[in-house]
């Protein structure tokens, strides 16, 4: 295997354009109804380096173009279509849903949304699937837009990492979000999404009330969006070592929040929205990476459309072009670069920057290490979360917002307890077409599993107390077990100065910095990049017997992320030879294991004080194992600056006419997960249709 020092990997095998058929589908040719005069009237004196865009040959023309078919994009597409617009979604992946599809579907809204009201009244859903009582007390569900707004701008909340998740939120943006939460919940319900009982609140959704709900299907004889049923095979529960093309991640038991026979996760949110969008006539151009937003002039005038290039994803096993789960509404376009004109507006919903190590370095230089991916990397492919919206926005003069807010969400990046796979964030199994890209599902050892091995860096040295390595401070959430605020829920007093008094912050502070130690410089960090390199869990056969870890396919595989050998020396050699980001030999590994075994004998670990946290076990019984430990960059909070209508703003605070953005593409709102993206999509879809071209 060739060594790579950067992340220019492209899973796409070479393809021959000439063999591909070109389809003429809704092709419109030149711009209609757009004169050169109007294009130039807002002329810009800086335009000499880039000519104005009057002569572009448009390949397609629609009212609204949406870059990205995830939670913000699909919601925006349906909303714009409902309001009468023609809509085209371009997405770099072979299928829709983005990260929503592999999510847990925890959708935190509030402000008195219809699911809160339903649960206050203890009612079932309209189809009568829900047979369990409300999971939260009515008092914990009584919510208003004003309370929600107060909660998510509450300067006084400091989380267990001593960061402030809410105080930097953009007020106009989050006020609009709060006002649109109830309508968005209803909108999702109207598009086949079924919500379980509300239970708690997702991080960043405010501390005073319970606002989060997951999405469900009922197990049944066939998978039917309209009926709300899914087969056990499609849900991934018929065989725990197999998931489906429909739901890449195994669905969770929802009996406690719905009733017997219910299952929940992102497939029960993403697939219904996709189904509805296709039913309503949204067009989808998949395998197409959105590259640039085209503006009349480089930094002035309206947004005219986008350019996008062909980004085919080929099946990891047979090399064929991958196919989306549903086909209706797909536009099969295989030319290299095309231009699509937007008569009304462009919505950027192509996600964040978590998969782009160069952009990540803006926030944390050590995270430029390409060995560490973003979440869901097998599903999304090499272009997922690649900062495309941020990059394209900057090129037409957009401003950025919330650039420090990646740091103030405690799990933006974390060490995953799933070992032995690069794609350490999901439970996707064989049966999903992209499983081959991850090769192994990984072994989820939990935080306590870190007691059973030593963790070493790229030169084979221990670098931190293993037991504390994966510790994650909990986000400030209600009513989480240690919710990061004084009291919980109803006891939380918003805007109270005592919430952030020094004594309280000291008491709850629980960040161990293991991740930062994992990214530290070491003897293998060489100029000019000083990469910290991969990290490895090293253990022996005794550990396997103590824990019952299933060290076999599909949990591990011969994919460069797990190794097994009869001696430590051989193990070190195998890692050095077989792992794509292992740039130097693990020259200290043998010595490190010997030293560790002496520490175990002595009952004392003078380097990292392991004896304080858990019993220590020798590493002596072959075979010996090495499993990759992954740092995962999950969320993006810094991004394009938008106003309450999701319109992108330039550096002077002026609206860039015709350009909208939502979800992880935007900054200024430190809210984790889906609740943000759906409302952004709903707002953007609403206003994007009203926008009229010059």
């Amino acid at each position, binding site marked *: 295997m060739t060594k790579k020092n950067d992340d220019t990997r492209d899973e796409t095998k070479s393809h021959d354009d000439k063999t591909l058929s070109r389809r003429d589908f809704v092709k419109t040719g030149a711009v209609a109804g757009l004169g050169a005069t109007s294009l130039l009237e807002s002329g810009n004196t800086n335009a000499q380096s880039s000519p104005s865009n009057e002569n572009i040959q448009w390949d397609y023309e629609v009212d609204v173009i949406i870059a990205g078919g995830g939670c913000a994009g699909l919601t925006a597409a349906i909303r714009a279509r409902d309001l009468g617009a023609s809509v085209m979604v371009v997405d770099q992946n072979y299928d829709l849903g983005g990260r929503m599809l592999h999510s847990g579907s925890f959708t935190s809204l509030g402000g008195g949304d219809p699911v809160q009201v339903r649960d206050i009244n203890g009612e079932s859903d309209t189809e009568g699937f829900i047979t369990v009582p409300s*999971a939260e007390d009515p008092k914990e569900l009584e919510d208003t837009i004003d309370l929600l707004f107060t909660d998510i701008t509450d300067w006084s909340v400091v989380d267990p990492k001593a960061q402030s998740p809410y105080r930097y939120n953009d007020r106009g943006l989050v006020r609009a979000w709060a006002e649109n939460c109830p309508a968005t919940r209803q909108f999702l319900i109207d598009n086949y999404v079924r919500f379980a009982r509300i239970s708690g609140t997702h991080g960043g959704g405010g501390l005073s009330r319970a606002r989060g709900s997951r999405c469900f299907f009922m197990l049944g004889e066939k998978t039917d969006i309209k009926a709300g049923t899914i087969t056990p095979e499609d849900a991934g529960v018929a065989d725990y070592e197999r998931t489906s093309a429909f739901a890449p991640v195994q669905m969770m038991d929802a009996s*406690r929040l719905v009733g017997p026979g219910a299952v929940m996760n992102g497939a029960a949110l993403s697939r219904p929205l996709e189904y509805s969008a296709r039913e309503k006539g949204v067009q989808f151009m998949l395998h197409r990476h959105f590259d640039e937003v085209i503006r009349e002039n480089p930094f002035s005038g309206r947004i005219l459309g986008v350019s996008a290039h062909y980004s085919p994803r080929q099946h990891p096993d047979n090399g064929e072009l991958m196919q989306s789960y549903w086909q209706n509404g797909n536009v099969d376009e295989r030319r290299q670069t095309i231009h699509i004109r937007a008569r009304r507006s462009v919505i950027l919903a192509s996600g964040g920057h978590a998969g782009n190590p160069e952009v990540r370095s803006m926030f944390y230089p050590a995270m430029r290490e390409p060995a560490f991916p973003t979440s869901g990397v097998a599903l999304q492919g090499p272009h997922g979360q690649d900062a495309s919206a941020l990059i394209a926005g900057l090129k037409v003069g957009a401003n950025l917002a919330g650039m420090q807010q990646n740091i103030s969400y405690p799990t933006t990046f974390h060490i995953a307890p799933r070992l032995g796979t690069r794609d350490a964030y999901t439970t996707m199994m064989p049966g999903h077409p992209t499983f081959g890209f991850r090769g192994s599902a990984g072994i*989820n050892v939990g*935080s306590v599993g870190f007691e059973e091995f030593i963790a070493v860096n790229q030169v084979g040295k221990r670098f931190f107390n293993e037991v504390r390595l994966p510790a994650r401070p909990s986000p400030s959430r209600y009513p989480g*077990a240690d919710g990061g605020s004084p009291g919980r829920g109803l006891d939380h007093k918003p805007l109270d100065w005592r919430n952030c008094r020094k004594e309280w912050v000291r008491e709850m502070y629980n960040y161990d910095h293991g991740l930062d130690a994992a990214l530290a410089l070491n003897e293998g960090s060489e100029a000019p990049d000083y990469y910290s390199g991969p990290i490895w869990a090293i253990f022996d056969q005794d550990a396997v017997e103590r824990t019952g870890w299933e060290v076999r396919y599909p949990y591990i595989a011969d994919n460069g992320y797990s190794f097994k050998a009869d001696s430590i020396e051989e193990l070190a050699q195998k890692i050095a030879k077989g792992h794509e980001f292992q740039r130097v030999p693990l020259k200290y590994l043998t010595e490190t294991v010997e030293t560790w075994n002496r520490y175990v004998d002595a009952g004392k670990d003078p380097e990292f004080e392991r004896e304080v946290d858990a019993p220590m076990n020798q590493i002596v019984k072959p075979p010996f194992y090495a499993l990759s430990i992954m740092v995962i960059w999950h969320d993006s909070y810094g991004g394009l600056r938008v106003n309450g209508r999701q319109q992108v703003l330039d550096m002077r605070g002026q609206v860039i006419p015709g350009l909208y953005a939502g979800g992880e593409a935007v900054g200024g709102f430190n809210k984790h997960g889906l609740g943000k993206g759906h409302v952004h999509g709903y707002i953007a879809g609403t206003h994007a249709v009203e926008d009229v071209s010059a």
Partner: protein
Amino acid sequence: MKKLIGILSSILFFSVASQAQELANMSQFEQGQQIYQANCTLCHMDSGSGSPPIFLALNGNEQLADATRIITNIKQGSGAMPAFPGLDADEIAALATYIRNAWTNSFGEVTVAEVTSTLDGFEEGLKIASVWDGVYTEAQAQRGQILYSGTCGSCHGRRLNGAPEDPDMGSTPPLARARFLRVWEGRSLATLFEYTRVTMPSDNPTSLTDEEFIDVIAYMLSVGGMPIGTNELEPDTQTLARILIQQSQ
């Protein structure tokens, strides 16, 4: 005294001989501290702070002035607190002395004679059993598995190893195998039952019935490899207090 040695040796991994010698030299207060740390800190904390309102604070608790009440509660349980029928009069005296005088407390010594006279007339305990004696049935464990999957599994993981499938969720305590035993060895099923009943599920404690909780515990025992028996485990704390969680022999 023999019983105390047995309990402590299994918990602290000391040899019986050296333990006996050590105990002989130990003050009543120090013996009480060891018994406290082995049996009480799970809920009342090493600092005696408890975790109100669920677990009573012992430090600064004026009710400890009543020695009879302490002795009775330890022997037969009280409310959510399980009974500790395995402790004899010597051990109860030591434990009561410890909690009455530890931290900022100063309520005075409790003598063995005081304990013996308080316990006089109490029905003598049944024999102490182990989780390895076949204390649940297969059908019960199967019922427990269904409940576990819906109520517990999302946080404690499908393999009961404390690793939730949802990667956004942090890890939780394992409920089976070596790592579970490390925390629970030497405690009774009554302690496990009461602790679980008042704290779980953490977002909605006491939402299961007693019968459901005991079924889940049966499932946990089955995953831990403890053998099935002919009778179901009953949610009766006096019975559960006489079944100890132990390593397999």
